[in-house]
């Protein structure tokens, strides 16, 4: 009979009026791999952050390895009891070395007062061999590492501290399919060494692949618990969402891309490298009216540059955009707008909206020099208000007040504001959607997917840039794989297998040991 390593009883936490965790109870047994499954916003990440001490619960009990935790405790307390978390957005200091990142907070294991770099490197090396399966170069600066390698550093941080419980928050979003397999092998080997593992995820098939048990959360509550051997994808998805998820239906259209007339031809695009961002190198891609072209790739291979070029924010060093008989080399923003390209940016909070402005201001700012709203620089408030009200109604934006400040609007509705602004432009020909459903719950995700499909049916060209391979495969007519700033593969979606895409995404670096 294995005792519970972690015991969570009736834990509740509120953020303002939102009950993020509602009397959630869950037990994790020693040495098992438990998956915490739920859609975005279900509260799974919040629950684990409470367990780790980053958030303070309002009520309920938490017992870690037999010890009752006080209501308020810090990550330091959780770490002391052997709980570690590998966060979704890595908490690594780019300008420090791998060794420094791992040893930070535990410097006394190297030396009492003075920090000794060599000793740290040696100890990290020892830790690697002890756990096997992880190879990192302790001297390297974290800034120079790939995302997969950074994740390994995060895991090593936990192992270094003698972790007994390892929590991973959405660990596979930034990995290629091959890297996911590598990770799962590593987790199994850690399990063999007696480490308890909790994975937070919204991906059903991963749960079935790696976990022993799965706890499903929905809207802040725990709704079900299963042994993975006893359940299947359908049962899990129903528990997750409360109803069968409608799978997105993509027409099996027979035309080959060679037969179609592109409306935009991105020809030999090159951009200047900016900092450590990947720039476009001889980038070629065609967009077709009434078709969705999905761009798959690991984050950081030029997707951001591509979107910025099409937005008009990043200037082209060379290359041209061919459309309707014209060759455009200067991609100033006004030009891109005039071409009818609407952009849904990746990060709606940082790039899409000015949070402290109202819904109305956020919409109208996108309509520069639009004679409907502006006469000699002065805004015609009546026209503006009417237009915004119409959009609020059309996209069902809540709260339905144009003066509502976007900071206090929910994520899904924030996305709707962005959609309303971008998709209602006159003369819209193409839409670039970058990570359009990141962080959205199923309802908002379906709305967004539905919107993209509707655009496609209306004859617009859609460029979908997403690191969620499932999304790309579900929606796209054609799939292009981007790597190192150029397109390395392009095929009809139905002719691509997931593994094939993964290989192209990762290039020849699959399973490679990072050499010092």
């Amino acid at each position: 009979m294995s005792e519970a390593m972690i015991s969570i009883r009736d834990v509740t936490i509120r953020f303002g009026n939102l009950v993020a965790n509602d009397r959630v109870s869950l037990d994790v047994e020693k040495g098992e791999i438990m998956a915490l499954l739920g859609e975005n916003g279900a509260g799974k990440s919040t629950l684990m952050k409470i367990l780790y001490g980053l958030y303070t619960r309002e009520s309920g009990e938490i017992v870690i390895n037999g010890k009752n935790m006080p209501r308020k405790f810090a990550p330091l307390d959780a770490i002391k009891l052997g709980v570690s978390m590998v966060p979704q957005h890595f908490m690594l200091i780019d300008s420090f070395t791998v060794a420094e990142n791992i040893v930070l907070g535990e410097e006394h294991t190297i030396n009492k007062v003075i920090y000794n770099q060599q000793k740290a490197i040696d100890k990290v090396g020892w830790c690697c061999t002890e756990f096997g399966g992880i190879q990192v170069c302790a001297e390297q600066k974290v800034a120079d590492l790939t995302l997969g390698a950074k994740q390994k550093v995060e895991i090593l941080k936990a192992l270094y501290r003698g972790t007994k419980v390892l929590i991973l928050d959405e660990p596979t979003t930034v990995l290629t399919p091959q890297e996911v397999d590598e990770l799962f092998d590593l987790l199994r080997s850690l399990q063999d060494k007696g480490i308890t593992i909790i994975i937070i995820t919204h991906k059903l098939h991963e749960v079935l692949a790696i976990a022993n048990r799965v706890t499903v959360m929905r809207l802040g509550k725990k709704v079900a618990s299963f042994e993975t051997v006893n359940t299947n994808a359908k049962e899990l998805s129903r528990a997750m969402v409360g109803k069968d998820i409608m799978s997105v239906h993509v027409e099996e259209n027979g035309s080959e891309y060679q037969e179609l007339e592109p409306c935009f031809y991105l020809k030999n695009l090159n951009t200047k490298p900016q900092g450590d961002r990947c720039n476009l190198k001889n980038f070629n891609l065609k967009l077709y009216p009434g078709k969705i072209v999905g761009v798959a790739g690991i984050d950081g291979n030029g997707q951001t540059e591509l979107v910025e070029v099409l937005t008009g924010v990043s200037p082209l060093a060379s290359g041209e955009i061919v459309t309707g008989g014209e060759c455009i080399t200067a991609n100033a923003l006004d030009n891109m707008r005039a071409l009818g390209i609407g952009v849904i940016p990746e990060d709606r909070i940082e790039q899409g909206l000015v949070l402290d402005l109202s819904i109305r201001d956020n919409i109208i700012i996108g309509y520069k020099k639009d004679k409907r709203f502006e006469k000699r620089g002065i805004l015609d408030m009546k026209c503006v208000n009417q237009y915004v009200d119409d959009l609020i109604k059309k996209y069902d934006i809540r709260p339905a007040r144009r003066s509502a400040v976007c900071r206090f609007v929910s994520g899904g509705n924030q996305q709707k504001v962005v959609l309303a602004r971008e998709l209602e432009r006159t003369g819209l020909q193409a839409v670039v959607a970058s990570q359009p459903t990141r962080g959205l719950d199923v309802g908002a995700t379906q709305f967004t997917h539905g919107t993209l499909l509707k655009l496609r049916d209306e004859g617009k060209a859609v460029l979908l840039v997403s690191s969620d391979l499932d999304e790309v495969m579900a929606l796209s007519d054609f799939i292009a794989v981007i790597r190192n700033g150029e397109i390395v593969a392009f095929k009809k979606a139905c002719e691509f297998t997931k593994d094939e895409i993964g290989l192209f995404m990762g290039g020849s670096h699959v399973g490679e040991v990072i050499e010092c």
Partner: protein
Amino acid sequence: MELSTLVSSMLRLGVPLLLASLGVLVSAKSGIVNMGMEGNMLWSAFVAAYVTDLTGSPLVGLLAAVIGGMLYSLLMGFFIIKGRGNHVVCGLGLNFVIIGATTVLLSVIWNSSGYSTPIKRLPQLDLPWLGQQSMNLIVAVIAVFAVWFLLSKMNVGLRIRSVGEHPAAADSVGVDVVKYQFLALAIAGILGGLGGAELSIGQMGYFIKQMTASKGFLAYSAVIFAGYNPFIVVATTMFLGLLDAFQMRAQTMFNIPGQFLLVLPYLVTLLALIGVGDTKRPKAAGKTYVRGNF
């Protein structure tokens, strides 16, 4: 212009600036933009003068100035860290508080609107070739090495730097962000205190109205030029000291009107800021870190 007298002046004028700059540097490494160094120095200059006047002992005055500077810096930290205030405005605000308060106190205590009464100075050193220098010259040299050692060789320094680069990452491994920012500010307060005390009881022998004359801001620029490196800061602050020394002599030597020479340190700083981006700045400098819950 004899070289030795020039260097001698350079050291005298540069030492307070060096101490203040080291204070700004340590603050910056922990993520705090220390625009309040001006107030730090002026307050310490005042405390040093006042306590020395009361007790007759400049060393006691120095100690009081250091403690006073540290308290000032912690107060600034209170507004910035606990109050989540804008770093620049809090620093500037407290500068004004000190400028106003010390000027009022000057008139109340010494019944003057410009100078205090003469005050006993700190022990001076008679050095070969360098002439008479305040003992703080030695303190400054020690401070440079101490700051370098603290930041690059000690565990505490690693933690301070981590807080300035990525406070969320530091917090997630149990490094108390608030504690280390206050620690950095305390150190900055001590260094600024030494610098301010040097002005009043190390060199002048008086407390003069607004005697820091924006040395706090020159210190900030000196740190930026130096790329936040304690050894290069020595070079940049000494260079400014040299400019000051040159300017004082040039007034009598060449027949240039005073104003055009007084302008020099500021003009040079301004010109030097062209083409010097703040690239070496710690990533999270100027931002307020808040953990999770609200």
